[in-house]
């Protein structure tokens, strides 16, 4: 844009201050989520037009209580603000606070202010002040903090324009530090720091010294100096404590002058709600009801859009086939690419609905209460109360679920969560379950009310959760990793969720799924299609060979085509692969055709159904005779018995329940754990479990 300069603005603040609302207000839809190099945290940036010739790129840094990080997310804040060469390093910082927790919010504010970057304080939820009986002397506060202070309500959208006007003038802001804690702790020590690091603010130097590891952007010379200064670890720790205490003292002094609360005015909805929601009995009952409601809604609301999407892609495929010039590439598009993409898109309704619920519940503050209720139980399984969100999310898709484990501060608890989440029954398993249950479980009621098929589905869900819990317990015992528990969670005030925020959150999570799983599924669909439609010489000569073979058997042209198609499949690359693994999968009750479907479902589990449809309709040469279910029911093995009978059906169900087939999940686990070891462990152990259970089931039931 001619005449405008893009400036970096960083948005920081405690969680639950409405920082994200402000971000959404400032950037609207002009935001995107990317990646920080080398670290698996999502980078949220957006563009905001401050004025005619001032366009800013705003980066929404992860919420944190202090600039000293305790989780992976929070290291981003430190890195971005301290590293001048970081591409997101800001020219100015907006610190978001809110009226009720102003004291604690000011800790982070004062830390950033002391870095001597131009900073402005935004106090959000100003519309709540009267209700809470809070009054703030803004002018006095500005003087004490030597900073511009703006009252806003991101919900009521007030104060935003004032904020922008002030930002225009950021180069003139006061950048003096405000908490002079150094001299009260140890004058000599801090003077040494001042001398050694005269090029930067004292507080910044202090932070560099007190971090656990050397920041990557330090020069060798700087590292040496730091090494000397931090040699007495006990002293440093003591000083850190003192520094924080003195910092808060300064904040208290300031607030005494400017902040008044009239308790009689405040309503106390929070304690009333807390008493019910964290109740020994009712707390859990309510949570169970909430979960049940979520799952019910997903099933009910998702099926309509899913059917629609299914039909849409089928039609699209037909369209391409009839309207494009005939040939291999057209086939690739119609039979490989379009169904591949369709297979990803079809899960969006389920995933979006689940995340809509989770995000709304988080916005209300209820999720913290759930974490509170579940922590002790989760710890018995080696996980944290915070693991409940990934576990519930895993019922939509494991990919965003694994990513949701980032706020767990203990590495061991986080690792175990990541490793067991794939056991939860994700959406992709449902089409497989649905068709197999319909085929092999009788549609009867037991005890008059319970539908047997429904019960089987529920049993499979419970099996998934059960497997997750048991593996977690095992891992907890086996893994020799230090479990340092820094469990501290804020119990925020309850509030009505903002639809806009929920919407943006859902879009983000859905994109994560689409791009995390989508690209891989698409690539695999192309590869698998190729393997199914090509083969060595026996494949190429299929038509000629079969025609020759059958020239005396008096088949009509339709039957001949069927035979050719069947022969082609058997002799395609994937057919050979299926035959190769047949001896391995036979003990579980499968044949090479099922083998092909199994291989195909490495792209995505639900491809199993589509693959079988292809195999059987390819056999009938695309005449689409009957639905896939009827075709499967009619399928017989070499001695005339039904292929999909109870033993094989149950065996397949168990296999799909346990096997780690999702390549997308493996990729994200590798990314989040930064190692090949863990996804490999998942692949092997889950595969082994699947095999053993399927084998046992098949043999026991036959």
């Amino acid at each position, binding site marked *: 844009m001619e005449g405008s300069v893009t400036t970096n603005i960083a948005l920081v603040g405690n969680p639950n201050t409405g920082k994200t609302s402000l971000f959404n207000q400032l950037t609207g839809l002009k935001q995107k989520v990317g990646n920080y190099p080398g670290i698996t945290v999502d980078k949220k940036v957006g563009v905001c037009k401050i004025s005619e010739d001032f366009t800013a790129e705003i980066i929404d840094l992860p919420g944190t*209580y202090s600039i*000293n990080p305790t989780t992976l997310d929070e290291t981003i804040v430190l890195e971005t603000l301290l590293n001048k060469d970081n591409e997101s390093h800001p020219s100015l910082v907006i610190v978001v606070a809110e009226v009720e927790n102003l*004291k604690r919010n000011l800790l982070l504010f004062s830390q950033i202010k002391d870095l001597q970057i131009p900073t402005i304080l935004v106090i959000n939820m100003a519309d709540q002040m009267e209700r809470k009986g809070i009054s703030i002397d803004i002018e006095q506060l500005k003087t004490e903090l030597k900073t511009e202070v703006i009252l806003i309500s991101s919900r009521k959208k007030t104060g935003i324009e004032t904020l922008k006007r002030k930002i225009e003038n950021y180069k003139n802001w006061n950048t003096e530090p405000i908490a002079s804690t150094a001299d009260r702790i140890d004058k000599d020590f801090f003077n040494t720091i001042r001398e050694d690091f005269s090029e930067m603010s004292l507080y910044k130097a202090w932070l560099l010294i007190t971090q656990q590891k050397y920041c990557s952007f330090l020069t060798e010379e700087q590292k040496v100096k730091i090494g000397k200064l931090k040699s007495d670890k006990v002293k440093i720790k003591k000083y850190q404590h003192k520094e924080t205490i003195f910092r808060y003292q300064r904040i208290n002094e300031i607030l005494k002058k400017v902040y008044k609360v009239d308790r009689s005015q405040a309503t106390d909805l929070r304690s009333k709600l807390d008493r019910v929601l*964290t109740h020994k009995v009712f707390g859990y009952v309510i949570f169970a009801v909430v979960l049940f409601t979520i799952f019910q809604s997903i099933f009910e609301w998702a099926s309509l859009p899913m059917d629609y999407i299914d039909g849409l892609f089928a039609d699209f495929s037909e369209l391409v086939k009839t309207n494009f010039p005939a040939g291999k590439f057209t086939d690739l598009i119609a039979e490989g690419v379009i169904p591949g993409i369709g297979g990803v898109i079809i899960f969006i309704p389920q995933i979006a609905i689940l995340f809509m619920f989770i995000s709304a519940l988080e916005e209300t503050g209820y999720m913290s209460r759930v974490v509170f209720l579940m922590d002790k*139980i989760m*710890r018995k399984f080696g996980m944290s109360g915070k693991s409940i969100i990934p576990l519930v999310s895993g019922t939509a898709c494991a990919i965003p679920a694994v990513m949701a484990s980032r706020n767990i501060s203990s590495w061991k608890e986080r690792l175990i969560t990541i490793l067991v989440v794939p056991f939860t029954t994700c959406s992709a398993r449902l089409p497989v379950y649905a068709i197999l249950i319909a085929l092999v479980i009788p549609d009867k009621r037991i005890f008059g009310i319970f539908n047997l098929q429904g019960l089987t589905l529920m049993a499979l869900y419970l099996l998934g959760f059960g497997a997750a819990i048991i593996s977690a317990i095992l891992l907890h015992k086996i893994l020799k990793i230090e479990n340092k*528990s820094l*469990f*501290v969670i*804020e119990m925020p005030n309850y509030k009505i969720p903002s639809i806009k925020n929920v919407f943006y959150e859902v879009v983000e999570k859905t994109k994560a799924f689409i791009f995390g799983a989508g690209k891989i599924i698409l690539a695999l669909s192309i590869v698998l299609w190729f393997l199914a439609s090509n083969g060595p010489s026996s494949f190429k000569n299929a038509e000629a060979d079969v025609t020759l073979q059958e020239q005396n058997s008096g088949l009509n042209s339709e039957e001949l085509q069927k035979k050719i198609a069947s022969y082609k499949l058997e002799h395609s690359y994937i057919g050979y692969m299926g035959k190769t693994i047949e001896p391995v999968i036979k003990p579980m009750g499968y044949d090479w055709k099922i083998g092909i479907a199994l291989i195909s479902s490495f792209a995505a589990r639900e491809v199993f159904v589509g693959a079988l449809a292809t195999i059987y309709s390819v056999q009938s040469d695309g005449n689409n005779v009957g639905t896939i279910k009827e075709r499967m029911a009619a399928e017989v093995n070499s001695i005339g018995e039904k292929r999909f009978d109870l033993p094989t059906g149950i065996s397949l169900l168990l296999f799909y329940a346990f096997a780690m087939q999702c390549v997308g999940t493996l990729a994200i686990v590798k990314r989040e754990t930064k190692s090949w070891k863990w996804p490999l462990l998942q692949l092997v152990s889950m595969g082994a479990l699947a095999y053993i259970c399927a084998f046992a089931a098949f043999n026991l039931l036959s």
Partner: protein
Amino acid sequence: MGDTIASLKIGEKGVIDDFSLDAIPLSLLEMGCLPGKEVRLIQIAPFLDPLYIKVNGSHLAIRKEMAGQINITKI
């Protein structure tokens, strides 16, 4: 005195005394849990862990083991 946050009953208050540097992470101080500040127990989770407290104006939940490391004087 021997009392810690873990020995509070629901609704009881105390004032935080000094605590050992090793036992308490910096992050807890940064959340406002400082010597001399008032702490009140709001709720205990079923199974007695974690504890929901109000300290220095912040509403937090901490695990019992951590609570047991913070000495207080009951008031």
